[in-house]
């Protein structure tokens, strides 16, 4: 797809959601839809869809081990081996997976190819890794921080996280460090896709859409906190109502809240059917989560069935007379 079409479609989709939510916020009967029904529906789709995708992957057989290895395999005892790049048992796989899930190790190994004096050279490039790390951890902290609006009384660790995140004490309400990091990192990940020609070539609408969506969530959240203020007590009344299964719809919540909720609901509902499922997929990647024991252990194809054999001996028993008549030599008379 042409890059302008991809960008236009994904940006248009996000803006359409914003517009629909803005209209919905004006009508009280639609507030019920956008404040309560849509969030519940999106959450159920998210949970069930996520489970469906993971079970679907779980049902796919991996008859032969296919770990990606880029280090020395376990072999003769005096040859130095690489336990993380070529794990030989479950413990080493767990070590590899922890670094992958928490530190994005495969992005850390990202390299960049450049032409220098007629030769192609590969050098380390840590910006993608840094941007991804900043984005994912900011998103995690922001999500946990939101528990203050979903749980009553507010758990102590959420209050501590809130204080640490707002420790710069800039303005009131205080500026969150993660807000800046999230919007900065998502913007970087987007700009990278558009500016780098190779990235632009392989980017599709379903790469741009989640970026616009998350950027929209971040911007609407920041607008709501710092610029277009809403009554946070009414907001919590609604959100804690959702999370305690006693939904209520307080009056007078600003339209910006419904925009934020509509975008978040879209993210939830879209998540299981998109590339964002790498959240679950990283745990089920055969290239990552298998120990390289291809030769050390016997691996039997799980759908092998007992093969019906017909030996030569049985064949000869079947046709012995005919073979003798035709002059074909037989092993037993």
């Amino acid at each position, binding site marked *: 797809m042409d890059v302008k079409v991809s960008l236009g479609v994904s940006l248009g989709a996000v803006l359409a959601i914003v517009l629909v939510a803005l209209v919905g916020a004006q009508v009280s009967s639609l507030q019920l839809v956008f404040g309560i029904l849509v969030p519940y529906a999106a959450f159920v789709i*998210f*949970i069930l869809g*996520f*489970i469906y995708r*993971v*079970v679907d992957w*779980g*049902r*796919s*057989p*991996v008859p032969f081990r296919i770990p990606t290895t880029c280090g020395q395999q376990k072999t003769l005892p005096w040859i130095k081996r690489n336990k993380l790049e070529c794990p030989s048992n479950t413990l080493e796989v767990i070590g590899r997976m922890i670094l992958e899930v928490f530190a994005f190790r495969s992005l850390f190994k990202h390299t960049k190819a450049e032409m220098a004096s007629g030769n192609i050279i590969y050098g380390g490039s840590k910006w993608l890794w840094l941007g991804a790390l900043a984005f994912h951890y900011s998103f995690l902290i922001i999500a946990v921080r939101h*528990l*203050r*609006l*979903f*749980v*009553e*009384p*507010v*758990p102590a660790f*959420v*209050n501590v996280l*809130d*204080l640490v995140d707002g420790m710069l*004490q800039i*303005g*009131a*309400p205080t500026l969150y460090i993660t807000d800046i990091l999230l919007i900065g990192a998502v913007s970087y990940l987007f700009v990278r896709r558009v500016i780098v020609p190779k990235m632009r070539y392989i980017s599709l609408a379903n790469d741009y859409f989640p970026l616009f969506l998350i950027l929209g969530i971040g911007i609407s959240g920041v607008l709501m906190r710092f610029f277009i*203020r*809403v*009554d*946070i*007590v009414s907001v*919590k*009344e609604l959100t*804690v*109502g959702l*999370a*305690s*299964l*006693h939904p209520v719809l307080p009056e*007078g919540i*600003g339209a910006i809240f419904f925009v934020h909720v509509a975008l978040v609901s879209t993210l939830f509902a879209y998540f299981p059917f998109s590339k964002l499922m790498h959240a*679950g997929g990283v*745990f*089920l990647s055969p290239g990552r989560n298998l120990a390289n024991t291809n030769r050390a252990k016997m691996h039997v194809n*799980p759908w092998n069935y007992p093969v019906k054999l017909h030996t030569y001996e049985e064949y000869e028993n079947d046709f012995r007379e005919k073979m003798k008549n035709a002059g074909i030599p037989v092993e037993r008379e």
Partner: protein
Amino acid sequence: MYDAWKILVGLAIFVALFTAAFWMNAGKAAPVPEPKIDTPEIKKMAKAERKCVEDKHFMRTTHMQLINHWRDQALRDGNRDYINKDGKKYYISLQNTCMKCHSNKKDFCDKCHDYTGVSPYCWDCHIAPKEEPKRNEL
């Protein structure tokens, strides 16, 4: 399903984490805080005069930005005059203007701040009003 128990344990952790808010609330509807505006100073005023520096909606949503602005204006610019939207003049002071009427920090400020998990740093510098501790806090 292959490696069924590993996948089921993983999915159980996933569902438990993402529904954590539901478990923590345990289906109980949380009471909405009602900040009290029945201090002696407010009771003294005639009904019609019982107004804050700005209207109720503005104060509910934006008081923190107003107070922050007041701090900058009073301490950095030395200007302690505030003209509200109706043209009425107020003396900028947390202690002498805000807390004069809202002398009940525990039943006013803290009510919503605790509810929404907000911990403003007003009282790092200002002296919190002395209040009789409530019976259940002794």
